[in-house]
């Protein structure tokens, strides 16, 4: 994938987040960063896997370029989603950024053990949050070279 492709192509981000307030804040942050991407939001791990495997109501879902994953989710939690994604030969190349409130050391370790690509703790202050979301977008969507779909 070339730089030209990136600029032309729509970037698809899957946000797996159960708290609508948080999801909305992330959307607002992305809007503030003026990112030209599509943010898809699912509320739990089961939906996330359905989305990724394009099943049932997500039959026509695009394959995301980046996954933003909260750890504590209803039903199938973020750790299980991470493990499934990273052990699935078809999905494991999709970068997963764990975006969570937790600062627990175990969560950090466990996430990297399961091959998370990054672990980010959401800051409390809005400015910091906006900055971090902008940085994530900047880094993953502009700096790094992503695998082809």
């Amino acid at each position, binding site marked *: 994938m070339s730089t030209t492709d990136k600029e032309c192509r729509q970037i698809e981000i899957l946000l797996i987040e159960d708290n609508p307030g948080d999801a909305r804040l992330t959307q607002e942050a992305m809007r503030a960063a003026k990112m030209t991407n599509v943010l898809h939001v699912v509320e739990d791990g089961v939906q996330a896997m359905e989305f990724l495997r394009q099943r049932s109501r997500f039959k026509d879902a695009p394959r995301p370029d980046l996954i933003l994953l909260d750890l504590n989710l209803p039903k199938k939690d973020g750790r299980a989603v991470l493990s499934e994604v990273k052990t699935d030969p078809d999905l494991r190349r999709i970068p997963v950024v764990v975006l969570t*409130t*937790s600062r*627990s050391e175990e969560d950090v370790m466990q996430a990297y053990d399961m091959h998370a690509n990054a672990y980010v703790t959401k*800051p*409390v*202050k809005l400015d910091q949050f906006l900055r971090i979301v902008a940085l994530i977008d900047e880094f993953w969507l502009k700096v790094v070279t992503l695998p082809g779909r």
Partner: protein
Amino acid sequence: MQDFRAAIDEAERAQDARLRQTKLQAQDAARFTYATISGGMVLSLVFLAAALLWLNHAEAERIRTQAELEITQRAKAAGLYARSLLEASLDPLLTISAEGKITDVNIATEQATGLARADLIGTDFASYFTDPDQAREGYQRVFAKSFVTDYPLAIRHTSGRITDVLYNASVYRDEAGKVLGVFAAARDVTERKKAEESLRLTEQRLNLGLEFAEMGVWDLDLIHDTAWRSLQHDRIFGYESAPAQWGREIATRHLVPEDREGFAHAFEEAFRSGEFFVECRVIRPDQSIHWIQAQGKVIGYEAGRPARMLGTVADITSQRQASEALETLSRALARSNTELEQFAYVASHDLQEPLRMVVGYVQLLEKRLADKLDTDTREFMAFAVDGAMRMQVMIDDILAYSRVTTKAQPLARVDSAAALQQALDRLASPIKESGAEVDVQPLPTVMADRLQLVQLFQNLISNSIKFCKDRAPRIRVEAVREAGRWRFSVADNGIGIAPEYRAQLFVIFKRLHTQREYPGSGIGLAICKRIIERHGGEIGIDSAAGGGAVFWFTLPEEHGP
């Protein structure tokens, strides 16, 4: 003794007889010579006869003298024989007259009494015993029954030394059967008594040990399945008086059914290894259930098969209950630790989320409505955000406080100087900004959780820096050895702490100053206290000479590998 005396009499009688016979022989010889002479040449040889007669007489005289000498020697020999018989005995021997006076003694008696034979003969025999009455009674009994055996008495030496003896005594009589006295032979039983006493003491001590340990003893005949038991053994099985029958089979029937297999297995193991060990439950006759622990050894084999087993049994019900209680307690503690960890997680995640919502959306509103807000509204919104932010700090602090126990590492040898250096590195920027000088004295190796020791130093030093805001902080860290521990101190030249506030200083979220004066949540020293308590030490505060504060804490000395 009778035999002895009779032997002497016999010897004397025999000597008398020999003496008489020798005299007769001499007379016969003289007579024979005389007859011969007179038979042939009576007249012609009168002179010769007279001469011969004289010669014969001399010969007879010689024979007679020689015989008498022989008799004396034999009598002497018999006397010596008797005496050596007496002296051959290492036990004290004595003869006593019918009147109770000593008539003869051997050297052993002299040694036991400390008196010479000459001083003993003719004196009252009873006076040499510790209990003269008992001695006399024994003497009377000899007369009554002709003998006594193993009659216990104690001989007193002139030095006061006592010899325990057992007397065997019998009367001796003359030819007519008249009792002449008593022959008494004592056996020195001092050593035996000592051995018995020592055995008794050993047994007493052993019994005391068993009694205090409330241990029963059993001795099991494996072939006939019978057992000797101590009373305590039977008490452990719930009996105040010993049941007539006991053995492995009967013991098995006293166990709760689920434990019988384990009991049988312990026997199999003992037959293999020689060592018996089992812990099982006994149902007493009153239906109460008691835990017992039995230990034993196979000590006898017959035809290569275990024949005898000896061992102890103890009631371990209370120990069992205590260890079960301890187990319950440690399970509860583990559960509470797990809950605490869960709480910590809740604090680090779930409690933060709503705060982030409050802060995030208030600030988002502030941004969106920027040009429409008046000063009051902005101030109110700032308070809302500030409150939420402080709440977040407190949550973090509680989390840090709980981590002192939930994230604790085992105590190990830690170089406290290195821990302090790490804390100073972490505080590099506040040290630089405040112009603080930290004077570090030589510090020891202690038993500690390294990360917690670093945190402790960090909290104390940042505390010192914070309370020196109007002057350059001068901080001195040192350690002195106390009994079995090290007393560290961190002294500063700050504002100090009035004695009346010192007690509340280590309480969580307790603050002595407003946020405006000295910002902080009041967790630092509470964490220090919790760290030190976890290390089994103490923490406190004194006034420094120049008005500052001296925070001190103690840590155990290093020990072990």
